[in-house]
């Protein structure tokens, strides 16, 4: 049982790093609390797996510390860290039976047989592997193999955290859902810290209580799925979470108004003040497609835009439109009226976000 703290952690694969771009993990701080179900979400190549391997000890960080319960473990190899890791592709020991596979981590630390059998049976029972125990692991299906890989992490009593590195990549969609629920069950039952790496926001939000979103080697936001949706802390989170992602408009201040592409944006006064007071030239106003209203007729304070495409997705539609030379999206519920080429937009003022240098800034009046 442990709390995992990452202190001023950074990692580079280059021998002689010059710029921040040379770092797979840029200087970061993070705390994983004991017993949490976490997801590490981000696009390919953002450093998720590197971070995971640093926690498990397969990699030694080039800078900073990894602390387990306050104790520095940087140099400890994975064998001495009480951590289990499940990889993207199932790793099983072909020549052994399922039972021997599950018993393997226990036999390696010389636990007597009479204690191994009940433990393996218990884990097999949870993972629904009992009927397969006597079979050779080689002939199993991908999801059975992945369950065996997970089981090897669960049999050890001393495991304080299980790390999952995109474990469901090779699994069929229906089984994915089942296995994810299984993981959740296991988490509740054993009170083990679980960190789940994925690039799929749905997978992350169904599994985890809290999600860490990674972008360019940094955790840009750590919060519940709801927080990530409602108050994205970084433009990347806005863009990555939600389907479709957030709309961003480059904003400048001019004569008492917030200007985007020569148009005054219909935003509350406090936004105008905030944009006026910022010194950065990288200012964006963000709004989620869910909070953009589309009207067929002209009305006060509505922005004129050109309709490009309507995608009907059954219970909702995605409207793609052009505003100031850029394309944006709105998500409308079923039964919206038909639109011509000219449409008019209004934004829900409570759902607007201000982003300065890509990070969200709270706007107070």
């Amino acid at each position, binding site marked *: 049982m442990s709390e995992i703290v990452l202190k001023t952690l950074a990692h580079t694969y280059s021998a002689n790093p010059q710029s921040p771009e040379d770092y797979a993990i840029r200087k970061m701080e993070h705390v994983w609390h004991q017993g949490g179900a976490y997801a590490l979400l981000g696009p390919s190549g953002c450093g998720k797996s590197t971070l995971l391997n640093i926690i498990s000890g397969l990699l030694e960080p080039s800078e900073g510390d990894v602390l387990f319960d306050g104790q520095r473990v940087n140099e400890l190899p994975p064998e001495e860290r009480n951590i289990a890791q499940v990889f993207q592709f199932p790793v099983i020991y072909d020549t052994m039976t399922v039972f021997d596979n599950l018993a393997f981590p226990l036999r*390696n*630390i010389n636990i007597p047989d009479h204690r191994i059998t009940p433990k393996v049976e218990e884990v097999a029972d949870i993972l629904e592997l009992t009927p397969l125990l006597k079979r050779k692991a080689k002939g199993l299906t991908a999801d059975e193999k992945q369950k065996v890989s997970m089981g090897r992490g669960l049999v050890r009593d001393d495991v304080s955290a299980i790390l999952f590195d995109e474990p469901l990549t090779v699994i069929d969609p229906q089984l994915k859902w089942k296995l994810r629920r299984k993981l959740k069950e296991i988490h509740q039952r054993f009170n083990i810290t679980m960190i789940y790496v994925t690039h799929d926001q749905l997978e992350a939000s169904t599994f985890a209580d809290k999600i860490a979103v990674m972008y360019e080697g940094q955790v840009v936001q750590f919060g519940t799925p709801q927080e990530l949706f409602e108050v994205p802390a970084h433009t990347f989170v806005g863009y990555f979470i939600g389907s479709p992602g957030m709309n961003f408009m480059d904003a400048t201040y001019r004569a008492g108004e917030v200007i985007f592409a020569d148009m005054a944006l219909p935003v509350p006064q406090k936004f105008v003040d905030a944009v006026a007071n910022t010194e950065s030239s990288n200012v964006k106003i963000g709004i989620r497609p869910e909070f953009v209203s589309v009207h067929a007729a002209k009305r006060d304070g509505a922005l004129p835009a050109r309709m490009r495409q309507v995608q009907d997705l059954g219970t909702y539609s995605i409207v793609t439109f052009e505003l100031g030379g850029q394309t944006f999206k709105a998500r409308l519920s079923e039964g919206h009226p038909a639109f011509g080429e000219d449409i008019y937009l209004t934004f829900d003022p409570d759902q607007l976000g201000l982003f300065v240098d890509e990070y969200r800034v709270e706007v107070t009046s």
Partner: protein
Amino acid sequence: MNNKVQNNRAWLLVLPMLVLVAFSAIIPLMTVVNYSVQDVLGPNASFFTGTEWFRTMLNDPALHAAFGRQVAFSLIILAIQVPLGIGIALLMPKKGWQASAVLILITLPLLIPWNVVGSIWQIFTRNDIGLMGWSLSELGLDYNLTRNAGDAWFTIILMDVWHWTPLVAMLCYSGLRSIPEAYYQAARIDRASKWAVFRYIQLPKLTNVLVIAVLLRFMHSFMIYAEPFVLTGGGPGSSTTFLSQSLTTMAIGQQDLGPSAAFSIIYFLVILLVSWVFYTTIMHMQKDKNSQGGA
């Protein structure tokens, strides 16, 4: 059972291959078969002998002895080269210029022609000017491969190990490189010992290349000719006369075409049989493992 249209014209696609194999293997083999059942006395004088040559050959004590030596030789070099090859492959560097350097160094013996290998070792083991022969003599050992059968055997085996272990090592090296890194990582997390990693990850993943290595080495060693011929000439006495050399002596030295043709066929069938039995046994064992899984 199925509604597929039966179309035997597909067999025509096999025809080019069949023609090729006919000219490269079957027709030459048939001439041997032809000789094996006849006694050829001159260009136009030959008699049909039936299975007589085969019976003679199968009952020839000299050939029995050569066959025994041949089997012993193949078994010994397999027993040395396979474990040694695996060991070398495990010790070879995994990447960087060291890996390329070691790979090239190790491959060198494979590039040397058979006769030359024999000559190299012939000189190498000479007591007067050969490094190995001279050193052993200087150490006070009575080493002489032209007089002592044990020394001859020792040298031939050493030569073959030097010449061919690299092949086994290279095959194993390629097999080892194809094991995904995740297996080693998982093994570390499972706290597997080095031995357990070898026993449960590396060795199982090497099975396929080892089957190839054993087959190649068996066939090769069972047909060995040039190296011992150059090194010892089959001696002292006939202590290192293997099957190929017996055959050559019979066919070219004594012009006994009929018996040597019969012998060739027996020789060929033995290699074919052993290879086939070995291969099907291994494949069957693997299938067994799978079907055990399926049951």
